Each structure stands twice: as C-alpha cells, then as structure tokens.
C-alpha cells in the first residue's frame, strides 16, 4: 500500500522534472550556464606568481561591480573595481588637497598652462608583462578620447598627446585647464596596455580580462555581478606580508543582505547601509565605523524659468524657509550630514560658512508668501527625483508635509533616471518639473563644477535645472575659475561672493552635505574613505591586522 503511494509520487516527480526541463528547453538549454569565466590571459612575468599571503577581502556593493569594464568607456560605480585594476597618472588626496604620485613620479606645466609634461614612473609593468611607458599612456588617453564615450569629455581641452621620449609624455592643450586634476579622474583617465587592447573593441572587455598595470588583475568574473581579483606580484609599490591576495567584489543590492554579510563576517566592506542599520550595528564589536566628510551634497533645484509662482524670488525664498533641514539631517540621515551652506559642500575649497544659509522658519515663509501675493499658498508644484532613492523620497515627503501647512500642494513624482533627465532637459520649458532633487559630486574637486552645473547658462540644457539666466553671475564664476589656477585665495573669495549672490536669489534649496558613514570589519587596517573616489576601497593600501 505504501509502496503504491511512493510509486505514484515518483511518477509525478518524474513528470514534473520532465516538464520543467521541457520548459527550459523552450528557451534554449542551460548547458552553457553558470556564467563564471576565468581569466584567459596568458600572464607574463607578473601575475603568474602569487604574493602568497593567503589573505582575502570581500566587498559587497549596492551596484554591479563589473559594469562596463572597458576603462575608456566606464562612467559608473564600477570604478570601485577599476581603480584597483588600473593605474592613473596621479591620484587626488582630499585630506591635504594635494596629489599622490601613481604611474607618474613628477610633472611640470608651462607658464601659460597649455603644455604639461608628465614623467612616467620607470620600471612599471602591465599585467601582460609589457612595460608602462609614454607610448602606452598616449595610446590609452587617445583611445579614450577618440572613442568619445563615457567621460571622454575630460580630454576636450587636449590638442595633442606627444611622446617626448620613453618616459616623458607631453600634453598640449588648446585652452588652459588643470591637467594634474584631470588625470586624477576615476573616469576615463586609466592607463591600459596597448599589447593587450590593441584594436580590440569594447566587446573585448566583457570577458574576464583586463589590460591594467594596477595592484590587482581579474581572476574570474560572473556576469556583471561578481569579480574575483588577484594580487599582481609585479606591482611597483610592492606588497606587505598581510596584504590581500584575493579580493572579491560582489553585488548585494538589498541592504538587508549586505547587513547580513557584514554581521556574519562574509563581507569586510559593504556599500552604504540605511542609517537605521548603522545605528543597529554601531555596537557590534567586530565592526569599525568611520565617518568622512564627503564632497557630495543633496540639492533641490527650483525652476526659475517656468511661468508660475516660482518666477517670484520672494516665493522661492519662502520655499527655502519652509524646508525642514534639521529633520532631514536628524531623521533621514541619522545625523550623518550637516545642513549645507550654499552649493559647495563642506571640506571642499570654496566652501564657507559666510555663505547665506536659510533656516527652517514657517512664520517667515508665510510672511514672504503673503508679500509675494500668495498668502495662504493656493498653488501646486511638481517635485521629481530618481526612483529608488530612499533618502530623496523621505526628504521629499517631509517637505511635502511642510508645504502642506503653507497651503501649497506638492506632487512628489519619482521617475526612472532617463525619464528624470528627459523631463529636466525638455525643450519646452513649460513641460519641465518645478523642482528636482539632485545629488551632486565634483568631476574635478573644486567649487566651479557645482556653481557651473546648477546656475550657469548652457545650451542645450544639461544639468542647470534652475534654468537661471544671469550674465552677471556667469561672468563672476568664470572669472573666479580662471583665477583658481594662479591665485587660489582670490578665487575662493570670488566664489564665496558668487555663492552669496546666488543664495539671495534662492534658485535652489541646498539641503545637506553628506557624511559618508562606513562600517567595515575591524580586522582590516589601512582603510581610508576617500570622498574623491566615492565608495572605492583601495585594497592595496589595506591589510589584515
């Protein structure tokens, strides 16, 4: 009797299995599945030998760690991998506002700032064993510039790259630009091996391959979601006995999973966690928490062009007084941020507490609204942000609640990133949003990128979503920018002046300057959270204590 039952059950199971397989057969078989590729690179002298420390580190990232792995094309968060695989000429040191020499050991510029000579560090090798020299650097930068993808625009000022001799590269510019900052960029300034890349197109980099000279090479790769890196024994800067021999970068987009990995010791580093999790984990004795002032800030850009109440400066000022700055800092960020003074974030040069700061004051807001002829509100506005961002959503909802008290109804509209941009860049000004939440961080560390991006006129519209049109202001910051090459102090003064000017116009509500709050495994030493390279761990500097 029992036998019968099992026979039947077995029959049903078989049926189910066949059905399942048939189901998968319909879309093609899964023989080639798995998807993990291991490196096919025939390593030259370097990568074949291991550094033999046996240490490993794991980084669980919110975004895909291996998205667009072509160093000429990449313009996303996978820099957390690329910066460990490829070298740049220099690296910006935010603490001292100076440079770290990487593939370049000295450089000079001409008086007029149009000719820059970089001396390449001698004796460096790519992972394929070929030497890093001026020729290779020229090849890399030219490849990026000519492909015209990603952040290729950083080379816009370049007229030509010129190999002076084996180790000297001359960059000729058509207009003055601080090239030492440009070559620090985490986007589009990587050096790659001509021998490996050759004529290979973008597709080449979809495999488990790299062409770098950095401290790590790609050992294996699972789609875009996981990378296993191995230490490059021939790295010029050498290794310690407790350096990480293997580094795994893996995607865990759900914050609960990242938290589990961190708690269980399955990850040494994780991407940002919600502030509630940070609070919960702060007491864990296996973890260290570091806070670093970042160069990132959150801004609410007001549409000054669209017909309606926002054209009125008084209304914009009223809106600035209605924003619950402290609530956002306290309850959304869990205290990991400070209310902004103007658009230039704290810690970056050009930031100053002399800049006009609005405070939360509903009475003042009401008075200003009445002055502008909108006593009791009575109008509605549309606020857009990129869907999926919890911080932006909460900030928007808190603001909505305050505006409600003023009789202004705020429609909060989350949009996918492309729709968000489409709306902001719509050719018809009336079709654009009234206000939008934007996180911004500098391409090149300095105040100009913030002021230019948000308030300077540009055609077609890029990110100046205040749509502010003021030639006097544009002249002010352009002048300050020109000064910044020669006289930083004078430039700072001018930039502060410009910020005060623009804050008076209330074209934007600058909400807060972000503080990175990173929790990582206590046994890791040497880690520095560098805001110029957001969310990147430089594993070569780290070790297991």
């Amino acid at each position, binding site marked *: 009797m029992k036998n019968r039952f099992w026979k039947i059950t077995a029959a049903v199971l078989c049926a189910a299995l066949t059905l399942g397989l048939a189901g998968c057969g319909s879309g093609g078989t899964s023989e080639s599945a798995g998807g993990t590729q291991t490196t096919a690179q025939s390593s030259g002298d370097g990568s074949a030998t291991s550094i033999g420390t046996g240490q490993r580190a794991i980084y669980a990232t919110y975004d895909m760690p291996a998205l667009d792995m072509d160093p000429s094309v990449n313009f996303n968060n996978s820099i957390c991998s690329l910066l460990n695989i490829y070298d740049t000429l220099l690296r910006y040191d935010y603490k001292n506002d100076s440079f770290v020499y990487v593939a370049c050991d000295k450089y000079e510029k001409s008086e007029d700032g149009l000719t820059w000579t970089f001396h390449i560090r001698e004796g460096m090798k790519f992972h394929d064993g070929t030497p890093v020299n001026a020729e290779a650097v020229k090849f890399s930068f030219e490849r990026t510039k000519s492909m015209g993808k990603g952040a290729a625009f950083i080379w816009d000022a370049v007229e030509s790259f010129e190999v002076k001799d084996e180790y000297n590269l001359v960059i000729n510019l058509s207009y003055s630009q601080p090239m030492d900052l440009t070559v620090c960029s985490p986007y589009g300034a990587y050096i790659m091996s001509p021998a490996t890349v050759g004529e290979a197109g973008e597709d080449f980099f979809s495999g488990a391959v790299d062409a770098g000279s950095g401290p790590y090479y790609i050992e294996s790769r699972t789609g875009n979601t996981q990378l296993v890196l191995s230490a490059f024994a021939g790295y010029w800067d050498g290794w310690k006995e407790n350096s990480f021999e293997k580094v795994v970068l893996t995607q865990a987009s759900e914050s609960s999973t990242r938290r589990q990995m961190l708690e269980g010791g399955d990850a040494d580093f994780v991407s940002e966690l919600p502030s509630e999790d940070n609070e919960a984990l702060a007491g864990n004795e296996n973890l260290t928490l570091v806070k670093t002032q970042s160069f990132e800030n959150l801004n609410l850009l007001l549409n000054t062009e669209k017909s309606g109440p926002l054209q009125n400066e008084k209304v914009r000022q009223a809106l600035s007084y209605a924003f619950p700055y402290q609530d956002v800092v306290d*309850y959304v960020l869990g205290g990991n941020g400070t209310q902004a003074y103007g658009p230039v974030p704290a810690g970056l040069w050009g930031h100053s507490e002399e800049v006009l700061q609005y405070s939360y004051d509903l009475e003042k807001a009401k008075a200003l609204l009445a002055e502008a002829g909108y006593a009791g509100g009575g109008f509605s506005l549309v606020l857009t942000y990129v869907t999926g961002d919890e911080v932006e959503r909460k900030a928007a909802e808190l603001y909505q609640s305050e505006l409600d008290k003023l009789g202004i109804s705020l429609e909060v509209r989350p*949009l996918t990133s492309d729709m968000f941009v489409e709306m902001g860049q719509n050719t018809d000004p009336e079709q654009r949003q009234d206000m939008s939440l934007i996180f911004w961080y500098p391409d090149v560390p300095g105040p100009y990128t913030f002021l230019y991006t948000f308030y300077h006129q540009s055609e077609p519209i890029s990110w100046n979503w205040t749509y502010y049109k003021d030639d006097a202001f544009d002249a002010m910051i352009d002048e300050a920018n020109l000064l910044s090459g020669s006289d930083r102090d004078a430039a700072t003064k001018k930039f502060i002046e410009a910020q005060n000017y623009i804050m008076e116009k209330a074209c934007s509500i600058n909400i807060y300057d972000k503080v990175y709050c990173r929790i990582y495994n206590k046994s890791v030493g040497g880690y520095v959270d560098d805001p110029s390279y957001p969310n990147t761990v430089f594993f070569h500097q780290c070790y297991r204590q």
Partner: protein
Amino acid sequence: MNRLKTALKPRIHKWRTNFYLLRKNKLTFLSLLFIILLVVVAIFAPLLAPHPEHIMEMTNPSEKLLPPSGEYWFGTDELGRDIFSRILYGTRISLLASLAAVGLAMLIGIPLGALAGYKGGWIDNVIMRICDIFLSFPSLLLAIVIAAFAGPSLKNALIAIAISWWPWYARIVRGQAISLKERQFVRASRAIGNTQGKIIFQHIVPNCMAPVIVQASLDFGSIILTLASLSFLGLGAQAPTPEWGLMINTSKTYFLNAWWYSVFPGIAIFLAVLAFNLIGDGLREIMDPRTRNR
C-alpha cells in the same frame, strides 16, 4: 413588449436558497461579515483612524519607527506616521482600486465578448485569438510589463490589471451570448427591426451580467493581490499613498529593526484576499450541483 421581455428573461436568482446555503457554511459566512467590515472601514477610514493626519501628507519624523504601543497600535513608520491609521485607509485604496480594475476589465471584456458571441464568424475568431494571446501568459507578468512601461502610478497599475484581465470576462460573455442570440426575445427584437447595437446592449449584455459578476467576485481576491504585488515592485501606488503593498516595499529596508512595519500591512492584505477567496470557494461549492446537496 415589455411584459414579453420580463416573461422571457431567464430566472437565475434563487437568492433565498443561496443565502440559506451561505449561512450554513460558517467559514463563508464569516468571510462575508469580514468583507462587510472592510467596506465599512473603507468608507469611514478617516473617521475611524486614531491619527487621520498621518494618512497622507503629515509627517512626524521625531517619532519614527516606534514599536506598537497604546498610542500607535501597529507602531510607526520611517517618517513617524501611525501604521494602524494608514492600514485602515489602505483598505479604501485597495478596495476602490480593485473595483476600478474589475470594472474597467468588464468594460473592455463584456462588449467585446458580446460582439464576438453575437456576430460569430471572423469577428468571433479574431477576438477570441486575441483573448488566447492574453490568456496564455501569466496575468501578473503582463501587468508588470504594462505597468513598467506605462510609468509607475496607481492609475497605470489598475489599467495594467484591467488589460490583463478582460479576456476572462469576454470569454464568459461570449459563451452566454451564443446561447442567448437564438432565444425568443432576441429573435423577437431582431424581428421588429432593432439595430445590432441595440440588441447587443439592450438584450445580450444585461442578460450576461449575472455570471460575469459572479466571476468578478471570485477574481476580486487575486486582483487585490496583484495590485499589492505591483505596488511592492514599485509599479503601483506611489508614496505617500498608504497602499499596503507599497508599505511592505518601503519596509524592506527597515524590517530587521522594525518588524511591525512589514508584518501588519501584510496581515491586512492576507485577510482581505483570504476573505474574498473563501467567499469564492463557498460560492463555488454552493453553485456546484454535484457538491451542493452533500
């Protein structure tokens, strides 16, 4: 003419017996009571909620993520709003949106089904093949695709649900229409020269409604669930709407620290869907002559 119509109308109602059978099946009867309660809650939500100000715009961040207490029965959410009040109000949203989705699905399905059944021939063939296409992939998937591309909002979500649901009603109506079109009163109507449109909407459609409404009430649970699922994926209602699925979606970030935030909205969805499904189950039992008398 009118008397003829009434006389020829099929008598499908036997409410008294059916109600008796309903009473006999305790679980079904309980569900019916629960649904009545839901409707009452939906209508009077703002009056019943202890913190009606927390339903939409109002926030209270200094009291965020508080555990359940006498003040906040189900705790508070990440912006300090009373979860209990929001769940009460969510009843209204879920019921209304599902009702709208079903209504819209009927609005598309019934005329098409009636047309297909009444006209027959190639029109019937085309409409039914289109139905086949829609029915041959999972309704949730279709709803996801449509809602994703239409842009996330409650309105688009319920349109998406209606689009993936109408073929069911079209099929039922078509079956009814085929049998109705040879009935005396339809023939009579045709004989006195009424137009096709008039026949379809005056005679065929009204007489198909009963089975469609029964089917719709059977579907209601699944529709609430689909709506919540879409919102959970971020494709339905948008913040600050207190939609149950959306509340669970938001709670994903906090649930390890604030269990109440995920648990209570889920219970609300579960109970509502369960009540409708139990009713459906009971109705099936009652209407199935094979199981009725046992």
